[in-house]
């Protein structure tokens, strides 16, 4: 075989049957992945026992054959892989569901909330980035979209694995889901390889995130994870969140060891979800922080993820465990909160902040459960002990209140994104000059040096920049445009006596590792550090 693989069990089976020469009894069902171009030729020449089935959409041949047929396939360069077809047809026995141990996300994640009793995620769309969804399941009531296939060259509509259907059920399934009126956008990122789920590629996940942004999806549920960091993927998740998609991502199942959270859950703006039992105590398998790759804390919150009862791809229900199962519960909670906040123009920013604060840790460490177990009941009690929802609204409104500086100066005229402030020159008469550049629309002179945009501000009162705004603007990185700049070391600059003291701060970006220097007044230096 040119490339690919043959199931070792098949090689052993056919070598035994070859030796025993037991005739038709040695025939065995085989599935072979082939090139579509050569299908007719292979079908004609394949020495099979009985009829041969070819599935053009999957580019797979199914046939019963003896050792000569098996050897024909092994030696044919157009065959990519050979597998045991009889295993593919085995459906697992339906699990006996223990009613005492298994419960739905709906039961634990809504937890008798009165404030959110009437909110079921109506008019909220949740993207389910997974193995597909069995959308005909009765629990969905027609609220699952047509499948968006993000897997290159792998065409199949539905869910062979069952994972995606279970996840979607915990979000929006009528009996199982936390938000039983939310709509689901089915984004398939897992491929199928001989009926088994194959890993998702970074490219397919990027494509799915792109679809989420373009279709204005409210929440994306990513019950998936990798084994190592991916800067591209983490950046893409952050971009999606900045574009208005709340990202709920499974923290991983590599616990209880510390520092076991990987991409994409490690992304700064992701809501990384740990898994707990129904009583809110963390499971052993749930990945633990601190974040091994970046300075920010992970996981962010925890949800119910052990023996979760939800929709099965065969119809009916089944039980699964994992941070995969905890994540859709949290996504469902967010969907209900978004519906509740539907009249708030900043609902997503507000709910994103609220969900990160409203968890109940129950005495467990931040590295295990983040801010703690979140349910609608916990959010309600959080709000009642923190002067109600208006408390957060008011606080957030104060921080994001637009002013002359943020609206007219910082924003780029061409793309409306934040420009990077390089320096601010204060003058004794109250005026100032702001030197800045846009990451997307920057000009270089003939020597390749950056040409700054400079804005003169005559009326200081109208262009008031608080120390906090100035210090935050320093965190914008010129390399990647993210707010990832942190100070590394600092040194006071020698200036004549009549000048304000300034400090040259060597800085580095947490996202792209680029290095640079910022010059800031000594009076602000300690605050920034």
């Amino acid at each position, binding site marked *: 075989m040119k490339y690919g693989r043959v199931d070792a069990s098949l090689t052993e089976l056919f070598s035994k049957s070859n030796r025993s020469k037991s005739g038709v009894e040695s025939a065995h069902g085989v599935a072979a992945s082939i090139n579509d171009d050569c299908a007719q030729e292979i079908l004609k020449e394949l020495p099979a026992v009985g009829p041969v089935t070819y599935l053009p959409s999957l580019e797979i041949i199914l046939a019963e054959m003896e050792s000569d047929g098996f050897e024909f396939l092994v030696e044919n360069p157009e065959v990519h892989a050979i597998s045991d077809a009889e295993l593919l047809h085995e459906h697992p026995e339906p699990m006996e569901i223990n009613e005492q141990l298994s419960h739905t996300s709906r039961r634990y994640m809504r937890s008798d909330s009165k404030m959110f009793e009437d909110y079921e995620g109506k008019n909220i769309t949740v993207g389910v980035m997974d193995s597909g969804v069995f959308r005909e399941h009765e629990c969905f009531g027609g609220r699952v979209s047509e499948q968006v296939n993000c897997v290159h060259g792998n065409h199949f509509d539905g869910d062979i694995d069952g994972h995606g259907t279970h996840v979607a059920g915990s979000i929006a399934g009528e009996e199982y889901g936390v938000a039983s009126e939310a709509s689901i956008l089915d984004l398939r990122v897992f491929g199928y390889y001989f009926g088994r789920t194959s890993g998702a590629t970074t*490219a397919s996940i*990027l494509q799915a995130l792109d679809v989420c942004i373009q279709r204005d999806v409210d929440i994306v549920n990513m019950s*998936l994870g990798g084994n190592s960091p991916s800067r591209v993927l983490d950046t*893409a998740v952050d971009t999606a969140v900045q*574009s208005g998609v709340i990202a709920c991502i499974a923290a991983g199942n590599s616990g209880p060891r510390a520092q076991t959270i990987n991409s994409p859950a490690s992304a700064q703006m992701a809501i990384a979800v740990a*898994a707990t039992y129904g009583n809110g105590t963390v499971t052993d398998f749930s990945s633990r922080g601190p974040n091994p790759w970046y300075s920010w804390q992970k996981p962010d919150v925890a949800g119910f993820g052990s023996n979760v009862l939800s929709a099965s791809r065969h119809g009916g229900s089944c039980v699964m465990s*994992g941070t*995969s199962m905890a994540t859709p519960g949290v996504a469902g909670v967010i969907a209900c909160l978004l519906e509740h906040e539907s009249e708030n123009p900043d609902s997503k920013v507000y709910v994103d902040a609220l969900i990160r604060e409203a968890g109940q840790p129950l005495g467990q460490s931040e590295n295990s459960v983040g801010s703690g177990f979140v349910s609608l009941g916990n959010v309600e009690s959080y709000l009642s002990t923190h002067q109600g929802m208006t408390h957060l609204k008011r606080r957030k409104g104060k921080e994001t209140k637009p002013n002359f500086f943020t609206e007219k100066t910082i924003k780029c005229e061409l793309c409306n994104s934040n420009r990077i402030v390089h320096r601010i020159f204060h003058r004794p008469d109250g005026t100032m000059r702001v030197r800045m550049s846009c990451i*997307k629309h920057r000009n270089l002179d003939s020597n390749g040096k950056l040409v700054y945009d400079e804005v003169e501000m005559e009326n200081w009162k109208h262009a008031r920049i608080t120390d906090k705004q100035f210090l935050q603007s320093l965190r914008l990185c010129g390399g990647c445009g993210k707010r990832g700049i942190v100070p590394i070391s600092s040194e006071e600059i020698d200036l004549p006596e009549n000048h304000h003291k300034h400090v040259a701060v060597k800085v580095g970006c947490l996202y792209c590792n*680029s290095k640079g220097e910022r010059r800031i007044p000594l009076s602000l230096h300690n605050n920034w550090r």
Partner: protein
Amino acid sequence: MDSDSLETKFQSCLLLFEDGGGVVNIQFSGEFNDVSTAFDTSWILTHHESLSMMTVQIPSHGCFSLLHPNIVYWEVDRNDFMPLEESE
């Protein structure tokens, strides 16, 4: 060594070249049209428009196109992202 230094970027391209090229995911700054000129159009598999990213299948002789100044970062595509279901 700085992971974004020219030396590191060059070494990454060299490694990809030695591997015979491959599928890479690219994060870029500026306009897509400026960056895409660095690649043959048949190499570009997907432009993730809203993310300022693209997926490109680069043959070995095209690896050094990844040194284009508008390319912020790139990674070889991987396929190890799995569903996080756990058997208890």
